[in-house]
């Protein structure tokens, strides 16, 4: 978002970006939740139990310093979108990042979003999980932009230097979720 701030009206661009990202998350989660509802709850609990074990294993490896590269399209959103005008760019970028699967994922914790939305097996709950992702992703970018404007420094460099800490945080959250799920389902 902070790469395309030429001109006025950044508030409208940021608003469109947040709305598009949140909307993409809500829609994705609703579709996944509806699809999950087609499966019997016993099957979803079984799959969730296996994924909980996988989450503990992958998160544990990350915490022990062994980086396991997540499956992903290792690319950014297309640069040519910038040429389509600021509002179209904000809309497309928001939709792409709120969905998340077609750009760089970076963290195994991301997979919790679509898989969790699917396994809850409910349209509204799935939308809440994925919508939270879309909203958080876009709002974080807006706050980074505000920080950049306020402190007249590029916050993206500061953030990239904290990638290692973010990996630890994400891996810890993955282990935490995995263990909590395992305990609740009674593994």
């Amino acid at each position: 978002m902070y790469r395309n701030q030429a001109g006025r009206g950044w508030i409208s661009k940021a608003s469109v970006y947040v709305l598009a990202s949140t909307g993409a998350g809500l829609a994705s989660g609703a579709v996944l939740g509806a699809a999950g509802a087609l499966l019997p709850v016993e099957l979803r609990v079984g799959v969730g139990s296996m994924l909980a074990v996988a989450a503990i294993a992958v998160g544990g490896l990350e915490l022990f310093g062994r980086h396991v590269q997540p499956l992903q399209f290792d690319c950014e959103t297309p640069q040519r979108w910038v040429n389509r005008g600021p509002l179209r760019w904000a809309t497309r970028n928001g939709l792409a990042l709120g969905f998340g699967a077609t750009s760089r994922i970076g963290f195994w914790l991301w997979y919790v979003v679509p898989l969790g939305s699917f396994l809850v097996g409910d349209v509204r709950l799935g939308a809440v999980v994925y919508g939270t992702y879309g909203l958080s992703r876009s709002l974080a970018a807006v706050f980074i932009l505000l920080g950049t404007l306020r402190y007249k420094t590029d916050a993206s460099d500061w953030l990239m230097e904290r990638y290692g800490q973010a990996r630890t945080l994400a891996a810890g959250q993955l282990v935490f979720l995995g263990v909590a799920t395992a305990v609740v389902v009674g593994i």
Partner: protein
Amino acid sequence: MAVGFGVLASLVARGFGGSGWVFALLVLSAAVAAIAQQTLP
């Protein structure tokens, strides 16, 4: 650290119980994943 996270999660999950707790963790995970991704190049 992994063991610490696991023990803490186990204690909290036993304390609260129920799927609502796991759902809350799912929502938190979604927010954490989104914020962590801001550190990607």
